[in-house]
């Protein structure tokens, strides 16, 4: 979490805080992407998109370092044993009731 550009330094370091931030920035990127699909010449939106790409990358890296892989198929390294199916990293549909 050193070497990061501003927004990702904010907020706590807990898994939930990181996840919420990733969901927020992730949604901005989804929505901007859709807008740009039909407005490919909008330089202003592309600027916003590019800035968020950097933020998102740093957020992801910080999350993966602390909590393990976010995505499958070769997008993050793993320690032993294979972290993807480790019980310490719940699946997204598992809420806090149990």
């Amino acid at each position, binding site marked *: 979490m050193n070497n990061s550009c501003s927004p990702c330094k904010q907020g706590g370091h807990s898994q939930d805080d990181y996840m919420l931030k990733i969901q927020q920035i*992730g949604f901005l990127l989804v929505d901007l992407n859709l807008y740009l699909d039909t407005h490919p010449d909008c330089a202003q939106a592309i600027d916003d998109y590019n800035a968020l790409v950097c933020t998102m990358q740093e957020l992801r890296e910080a999350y993966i370092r602390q909590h393990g892989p976010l*995505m499958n*198929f070769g997008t993050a390294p793993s320690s032993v044993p294979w972290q*993807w*199916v*480790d019980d310490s990293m719940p*699946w997204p*549909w598992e809420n806090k009731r149990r």
Partner: protein
Amino acid sequence: MWYYEKRLEYPINIKKCDLRMAKLIAAQLGGPDGELGAALRYICQRYSMPTSKIKGVLTDIGTEELAHVEMISTMMFQLMQDATVDEIEKAGLSPYFTQHGRAVYPVDSSGVPFTAAYFQSVEDAVTNLHEDMAAEQKARVTYERLMQQADDPDIIEPLRFLRQREVIHFQRFGEALDEVNFRKDRKTIY
């Protein structure tokens, strides 16, 4: 959350239009043992599975099946792409052409549209995993029959790859089933 990667899992470049094979390969897009049913089956079943390992297997194989839906769709598209209306009529695809043109739409090789009734999802890991293993074997034999009827290597090679993936998925589901069967808290006396 899902992301799309702009590439095929295995390269496909079919140079020759072949409506007969397009009609047959449709079985693996919208048919009862096809890739779309496989993807939806695993992605539905994963929620109520008992262990993280099995949730992972279903998530990952379900995701790979979506890549196979894309591969089969690509084959359908390339096989129909340049067909004339005359060729379509001779291949017996006029009803399909009437409803869909040369677009990709999930039907089986007899033109029956895809339905979610092709798969189950029940709150029981043993039941789900047995269905999954059977589904992989049924898809494997379907690929073998398709390969028997194809002569173009551009068609056979991707089919061979997809057939091999069915074998691997069967193996992984078998290991997932072992995990259920050998869990320490499993009831062994009835």
